[in-house]
């Protein structure tokens, strides 16, 4: 249905979806950029963040506690995963890393399914963001607007950590040349652990923030992981700004094309990815570096 109000509403929906994809994908891309590991369990971590948050919400009834719990739990899960498994795969071929994270993703999904069953879980938006807001030209769910703000804040924090801190300097140096950073006397392994944790936390954070918009099931991570891949390919692998730009583009494509025919929205997304690959094989903001 093509009409002005519908178009505006879909543009906003695209923005919300795009913001979430941007946050999820920046986690994926900084992990890959720094560690050289493509984490196929990233979608599962998005899902785990959602479940951890919902559990916390069920005990406390607090949205803030839920978000903190979702993000915090996945941060710990990421650190544990890096310490126990990923660490041993840095010297192995890319394909081995992909296989093992793929397997871990299945394990996470099945553990959650074992604990919570396959039925969907949800959580209401916080009271300060419940209901709808009038924007003058249209009315829109308040929480969705809030999500754009929350995600923008999270991305800003991520940006400050990555570009305005000592850790960030080391991380970006590590993306350029991790061997050199190591030989400068910086414990690159600890940096790797922290980056894996932060990248995972971005997924968990996006996962719990998304719950009041769309209920979660154990399988939710699979399709969103594929979308995150497309985002990263469009934006450029390893590029943080690329992930944000790619996320917003992908969100709008999915949202606006579904206005014309929902069944083609995914197909359009992949068509755009193919186009980007043809014209700019390294992605919109990617460099020739890794990959």
């Amino acid at each position: 249905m093509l009409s002005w109000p519908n178009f505006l509403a879909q543009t906003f929906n695209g923005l919300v979806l795009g913001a979430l994809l941007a946050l999820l994908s920046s986690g994926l891309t900084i992990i890959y950029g720094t560690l050289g590991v493509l984490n196929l369990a990233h979608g599962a971590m998005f899902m785990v963040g959602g479940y951890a948050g919902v559990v916390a919400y069920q005990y406390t009834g607090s949205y803030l506690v839920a978000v903190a719990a979702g993000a915090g739990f996945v941060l710990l899960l990421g650190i544990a995963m890096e310490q126990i498994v990923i660490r041993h795969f840095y010297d192995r071929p890319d394909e081995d890393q992909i296989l093992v994270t793929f397997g871990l993703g299945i394990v996470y999904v099945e553990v959650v399914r074992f604990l919570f069953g396959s039925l969907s879980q949800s959580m209401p938006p916080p009271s300060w963001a419940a209901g709808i807001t009038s924007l003058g030209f249209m009315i829109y769910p308040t929480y969705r607007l809030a999500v754009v703000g929350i995600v923008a804040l999270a991305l800003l924090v991520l940006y400050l950590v990555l570009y305005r801190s000592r850790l960030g300097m080391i991380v970006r140096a590590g993306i350029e040349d991790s061997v050199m950073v190591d030989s400068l006397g910086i414990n690159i392994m600890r940096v790797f652990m922290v980056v894996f944790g932060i990248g995972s936390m971005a997924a968990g954070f996006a996962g719990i923030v998304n719950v009041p918009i769309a209920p979660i099931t154990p399988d939710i991570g699979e399709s969103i992981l594929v979308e995150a891949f497309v985002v990263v390919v469009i934006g450029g692998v390893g590029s943080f700004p690329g992930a944000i730009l790619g996320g917003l583009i992908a969100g709008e494509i999915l949202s606006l094309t579904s206005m014309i025919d929902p069944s083609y929205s995914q197909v359009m997304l992949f068509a755009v990815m193919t186009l980007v690959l043809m014209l700019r094989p390294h992605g919109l903001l990617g460099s020739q570096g890794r990959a």
Partner: protein
Amino acid sequence: MAPSLRGFRALAPETSIVLVLLVAPFALPYIGLVPDTMNRILVFGLFGIGFDLLFGYAGMLSFGQSAFFGTGGFVAAYLLTQAGLTSVMLGLLVGTIAAAFAGYLVGLIALRRTGIYFAMITVAIAEVFFFMENSPLSSFTGGENGLPGVPAPTFNLGFMTIHPTGGWSMYGFLAICYVVGIVVARRIVASPVGRVWVAIRENPLRAAAVGHNVHAYKLLAFVIAAAYAGFAGGLLGVMQGYMPPDAFTFDTSGQVIMMTVIGGLATLFGPLVGAAVWLYLHDFLQAGLGLGASWRLVLGLVFVLLVTFLRRGILGGVADLYARLRRGVAAPDLAPVPGARDMAPESSALAPQPTRPIPTYDGPILVARGLSKRFGGLLANDSIDFEVQQGELRGVIGPNGAGKTTFFKMLTCEIPPSSGSILFEGRDITGRGVTEVCQAGLTKSYQVNQLFNRLTARQNVLIAALAERRGSFRLDLLRDPAGIPGLIELVEHTLGLVELTSRADVSVSDLAYGEKRRLEIGLALATSPALLLLDEPLAGMSPRERAETVKLLKSIGRGRTTIIIDHDMDALFELVGRVTVLQEGKILVEGAPDEIKASAIVQEAYLGGVLVP
């Protein structure tokens, strides 16, 4: 060994699988395997053969094989249920071709990138196929309902008619399909194409540099894997009498990957073993132990443990164990190339060197005009003019950072020059690419070894010789390399030239450094270059190895146009007829070794002008 016995040995795996498939229906029901499960094992075993060719041999990890499994399945099912096609075999064939064609189109996009990009792109494209099946094409595919009523084939043998509808009769049909699939796959793996795939997996850069069209071979692997997937997808519909839409899901791609890795990569039989373990555990854990849906959790854990600790899977682990028990030696190559042993000739006498057709051109073999290379702000090579005559032995020296390696890379078209042109045998080769230039007869040995590390010395040389004998790409999928005229002679002659005949069957990883350096030169030699470039052939060698290699280079250089870069000036002056000195990206001086030795400007360049005349 009698030829018949050797033939039997070579076919032992085929014979074994036939025996196993014959015995299975009598033995496996005792451990609770029902015919339906065994039929699924066969379908996924067949699906996995294609994936194993793609990932295990050619080294490309695709997460999108479901696209082709589903395409083959739905095209066949549509033809047989909606379009009125009556021949099931024809339906399967068309489905297979459709899947292969889909593989070709997807490959054109996905192969633009390698590694993780490739994995991500294949995932994404497979999702498109799933969405297409689910909505836009649902009037053909039944959307979420799939296509029921897929018929089973009928075979009229004259005296009787066979119509396998389910259970053991279907098992028989699928088992025959599987055997055909495995026999063809084993032939492909042993063919020149299969050898080149392994080379690409091990070192794509060198595979291209010795003259193989890497992109074409990768695309071929992708198409063949898609064809296997499509055939298996069609069989799934026939087996169940129903084509399910979940054939297209990411889960299906994941399953074939996990089954293949669990069973063992680069074994071809691995997927069958993996599928058996997978589906048996599925039945056993779900029904036997009443675990319900959490069987996937157990399999996920098994998979993670296998990837971490037993990368070669069950079959690979068994092979390692067997090898260790039998000989107490290291495990064989990851991808044992069948028939490789058969290729060793009975006598080690050096065969005559096969030669390229003598070129009619008799001007200078190589002419470079105004060659420059700029890396950002750095001018690595600054308008170099360079000429080498036929049969010349030329040395190129220069202090570190003079731009020697960049110069060589431009001559072999590994990197394009920023400006200038290169003529080889009178033809302009500027920007042609390393593969085409190698095929034209110009190649180099690398400063840092670029070998196929998990292959033996002989297999390494064979890869280069295949490019020389067959050209950059050929579709000889079922050919035995031993039958290629002059190939074995070329391999053995080259091994003799670089004095590795006695070490020919040793894996590269077990060769000494000096031997690896000689093999590095051997790879270049096996392409029968008209002009050979050697980039620091003596680098990193001990004095004794140097002396031996200099002797070797002398014998190689006889009657062959060669350009050598090296830092060992004593060795170089002894070898070459003429020397070009590079400094800061420019030619400083050119002349006979004695002139260079006496040249004041060369001494100044090397010693930084401290020499007082």
